[in-house]
């Protein structure tokens, strides 16, 4: 177990360094930050001077080293664009994204799980087929379009729900702000959460269904039936629990990608989260923010991965003994 965690952590470090390297190389190519930092009147000499002072003219290896060194200390510098410490900026935006991701993740998980179980248990039912087909619509249109359409229908035409922003937020302590405690905050969450969760819901639902069908054919299910256990106990106590083992992994990974996918949803709904921050940073070539964001995504992914593995441990007793080495 300890060895397992250590191994995971080592792997995570490698992943993080790789991510850092990749994201760093990238910055050379997304454009020149100077242009968005100075007015059009600035002379070329002044621009060069600024570039020099930001270290953008240094050899790339040196820049990377500096970046890594600072990143290790959680130090990502000052945003070129908003002139605030990046770490603070990201921490400020993170609650919005996390809240959105969690709510839509929860939505996706709960709906996906129940619909998946339903469609698996009633495999040939009419309603199942309708659900299966309808759910595909969610993955057959790009997210941004779904978002725009939802805004159009529910905000513009029906005026039921707000079209953008987070509504009223309440500060919880120093570092967290939540929209969940206010009415307007909850209303504002609905459309983005649906938009973001739709894709994941379809995915989870299909996964649950496939796994469940697989499990329902397992010998131990047959044996459970033969022992006269009630349908409930068989379907939920045995089949569902065994289904959850593989579902947990994928769902966990999905949560990571929900945060990344939030880029689009946040842009469309003007949701003040890290995704929108990132996209704006890309437009302005705000290198420190981009770097920090990518590192954050990688970190979240790595942490989720770790949690998933530990959960796996908790759920599947077979892994608890000496199988630790066999990651994946």
């Amino acid at each position, binding site marked *: 177990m300890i060895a397992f965690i250590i191994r995971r952590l080592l*792997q995570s470090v*490698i*992943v993080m360094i*790789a*991510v850092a390297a*990749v*994201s760093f*190389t*990238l910055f*050379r*190519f*997304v454009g020149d930050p100077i242009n968005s930092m100075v007015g059009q009147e600035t002379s070329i000499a002044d621009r060069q001077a600024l570039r020099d002072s930001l270290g953008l003219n240094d050899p790339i290896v040196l820049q990377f080293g500096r970046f890594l060194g600072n990143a290790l200390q959680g130090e990502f510098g000052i945003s070129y664009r908003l002139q605030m410490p990046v770490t603070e900026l990201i921490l400020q935006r993170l609650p919005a994204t996390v809240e959105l991701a969690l709510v839509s993740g929860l939505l996706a998980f709960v709906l996906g799980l129940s619909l998946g179980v339903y469609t698996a248990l009633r495999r040939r039912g009419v309603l199942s*087929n309708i659900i*299966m*087909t309808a759910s*595909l*619509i969610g*993955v*057959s*249109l*790009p*997210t*941004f*379009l779904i978002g*725009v*359409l939802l805004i*159009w229908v529910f905000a*513009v035409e029906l005026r039921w729900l707000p079209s953008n922003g987070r509504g009223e937020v309440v500060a919880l302590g120093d570092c967290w702000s939540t929209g969940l405690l206010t009415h307007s905050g909850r209303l504002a969450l609905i459309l983005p959460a649906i938009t973001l969760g739709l894709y994941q819901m379809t995915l989870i639902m*299909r996964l649950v269904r*496939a796994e469940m*069908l*697989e499990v329902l*054919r397992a010998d131990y299910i047959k044996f459970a039936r033969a022992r006269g256990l009630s349908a409930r106990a068989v379907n939920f106590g045995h089949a569902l629990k065994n289904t959850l083992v593989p579902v947990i992994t994928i769902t966990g*990974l999905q949560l*990571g*990608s929900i945060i*990344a*996918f939030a*880029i*689009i949803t946040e*842009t469309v709904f003007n949701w003040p989260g890290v995704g929108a921050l990132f*996209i704006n940073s*890309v437009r302005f070539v705000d290198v420190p923010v981009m770097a920090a964001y*990518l590192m954050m*995504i*990688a970190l979240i*992914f*790595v942490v989720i*991965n770790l949690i998933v593995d530990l959960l796996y441990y908790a759920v599947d007793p077979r892994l608890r003994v000496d199988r630790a080495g066999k990651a*994946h």
Partner: protein
Amino acid sequence: MTPNTPGKTPGRLYRLWDSDLFYAFRTAPVAIVATLVALTIIACAVLAPWLAPMNPYNPGGLNLMNGFTPPMEPNAFTGETFLMGADNQGRDMLSTIMYGTRTSLFVGAMAVLFAMTLGISIGLYAGWRGGWVDGALMRVADVQLAFPAILIALLIFGIARGFIPDNMRDQLAIWVLIVAIGLSDWVQFARVVRGATMVEKNKEYVQAARVIGAHPAKIMFRHILPNVMGPVLVIATISLALAIIAEATLSFLGVGVPPTQPSLGTLIRIGQGFLISGEWWILLFPSLTLLALALSVNLLGDWLRDALNPRLR
């Protein structure tokens, strides 16, 4: 012995028609409709240069004054009428959609092909070799997973822009897109193929080949590959739909094909700006086309997944 009737071996086509898969297909209305829709769209796209009323990719042939002509109504200035209206550049929507679908399909298919080739090769190799090679390759896949698809595509797009001389960007944009989407997609192919390879390589038919000393490459590609293609096909189908949508999303984020040669996604991105202004046809028709295409491909993939799973028969 079972009575054998040589000479009466039915033809390949008949066997295909009579196969279980095809039977399942023939009796699944959803699959048939999905195939018909997909084939129609694909045919229209592939034959666009011959079928489309105009070539929207030739900027010299456009008349800007045709811009925003509503469907089936003559344009106030030029008097021209378009079945599905004209877009903001005066392009006939129908033709543009046909050409755009062509581009989207090309990007999607090539991206999937790329992802598939990469994923299969890596998966086969990792599964076959096992040990640290396998471990290392799968860690690479992990790193890849740490970057969700759209991020990867954004990154690659950014990097490629740095490498490609600007006067070639135009032509290469599509290829960059293909590589970007493909690279974000190979992991699932690799994982499935790796898993299946690890199962297959211990099967006795592989051992039989090894006993006679067949070359590992031959075993991998001639023996194992055909047997792991089932799930690969399913993933490929669904990936195709995903790739087409990924292309649309990337184009929404501003990294995509040039607007002079719009893909379906670019069209939607453009049309999305006209949702409120009332020029609904610029958004509606491309979206419907994308929906129909992606939905039918997805449904097919879905159906295929069930049909190829012997345990669900």
